[in-house]
């Protein structure tokens, strides 16, 4: 297999950025080792022949569950659970 399959600290650090999850150096170290073991074990999926097999997104396939287009207002205060507010706005961090 090519390099892309190598589980190393660099990969874990990259994932942590994608996932917006700050990790300490110890966590990176620990997770790198654990990921190697876990993903190695998961590779047993390769042994299953799934040629022509459709993926199952749900245990039973349901379809066409739709709602009619009616405006039904929700009576609530959306800001009740936040401290980060200004007037009727949520307040968020800056972009850069």
């Amino acid at each position, binding site marked *: 297999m090519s390099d*892309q399959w190598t589980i190393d600290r660099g*990969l*874990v650090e990259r*994932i*942590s950025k*994608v*996932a*917006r*999850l*700050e*990790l300490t150096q110890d*966590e990176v170290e620990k*997770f790198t080792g*654990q*990921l190697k*073991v*876990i*993903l190695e*074990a*998961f*590779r*047993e*999926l*390769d*042994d*299953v022949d*799934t040629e022509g*097999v*459709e*993926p*199952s*997104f*749900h*245990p*039973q396939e*349901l379809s066409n*569950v739709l*709602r009619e287009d009616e405006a039904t207002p929700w009576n*609530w*205060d*959306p800001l*009740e*659970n*936040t*401290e*980060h507010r200004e007037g009727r706005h*949520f*307040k*968020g*961090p*800056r*972009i*850069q």
Partner: protein
Amino acid sequence: MTGVIERARTLDEEYGIFNALAESDDSTGGGRLEGVAVSVKDNICVMGMETRAGSRVLEGYRPPFDATVVKKCREEGALILGKTTQDEFGFGTFSVNTPFKVPLNPHDRERSAGGSSGGAACLTSVADFPHLALAESTGGSISCPASFCGVVGLTPTYGRTSRWGLVDYANSLDKIGVMGKTVADAALLLSVISGPDEYDSTVSQAQPEDFTEYLQNDVEGLRVGVPREYFGEGVDTGVSEAVWGAIKGLESQGATVKELSLPHTGVSLASYYIIAMAEASTNLAKFSGLRYGLHLPLEGSFDDYFSRVRARGFSEEAKRRVILGTFTRMAGYRDAYYLKALRVRTRVIEDFKRAFEEVDVLAAPTMPVVAPRFDEISGMEPIQHYMMDVLTVAPNLAGIPMISFPCGRVHGMPVGLHLMADHMGEGKLIRAAHALEVRG
């Protein structure tokens, strides 16, 4: 029922059962659950009651609505007693993966109550007042703690109960189910909470059933299948023997028993964990400290702020699953992990469909061992935690209903018999488990 709340508080101090407890009795009575205290796993929303799903990241969150199952219990007159302890977001098998209280096993407080619905199972065992538990399973989180605590745990078919108001772990796997001291208890609560719901697109359109009608004490002609793979390496011989004892019990009451094979049992573990983590890592993205839950001072860019909130709010197992789950769906890995796991899931479902052409129910041990001691658990690597679920993940992946029923003891600890049926076959499970309960 104010006395019940007081009693629950005492039990909580002894066993670590509640993340939140009702302040007063606001039940209306007058329904099928009049006089019953219903406990709610912490990941199921109760309007106005702190709902954290076992996570610090939801600190202080008071849902603006009731989960559909909670609403249905209220309408039947139940007291909504409180939020039971669990692994953070359901990420675990022993209810130890949480910054909050860890529930203790009622039969030996040195041991785990199981997970992730540990608090629910523990309370079901120790409650000395009329009580039923709303629990939830993604990969075995009802069956496992029911087995370890010696109570009845019923996980319904995926979509039998509405997930509206459930703090998602893995949406294509999550099922709200029930626990009770008896099969009749479980059947009653399932009757109350099942049925269609306009707020959940994945719920079955099947009309609600009265599952207590299946409490018939009759298994004559019931075809019981015993899957070979569920008695393999790693399954404690004492556990095997206890389970076989229960199977023989069914046979003696007129059931037929046949051994068969579910060849994809082993690989179901990888398929399950990949799908569950992929979905979970997207579900956890919303926890970013802006609109509810944990807040930090708004400093730095949004990238910094989100990364900091999430580092502070998630504990170790949640972080591990976010990392793993993000990995399995990243460009370049997605086909080999996420999509492959979904295809293997199809194979696992086919295994069960084939088996249920021949038998009505499958019987197996719920867990390979009895509840481990906390000192054993702390020495386990993550992969060993995951492997504890090897017997419960396949039916959860297939979304079939299952019931864990106490069938004896090993070293003084309860053993669970796991019965599984085809989709929408809860009635058969109730029928079989009830027969064992009545006549052993």
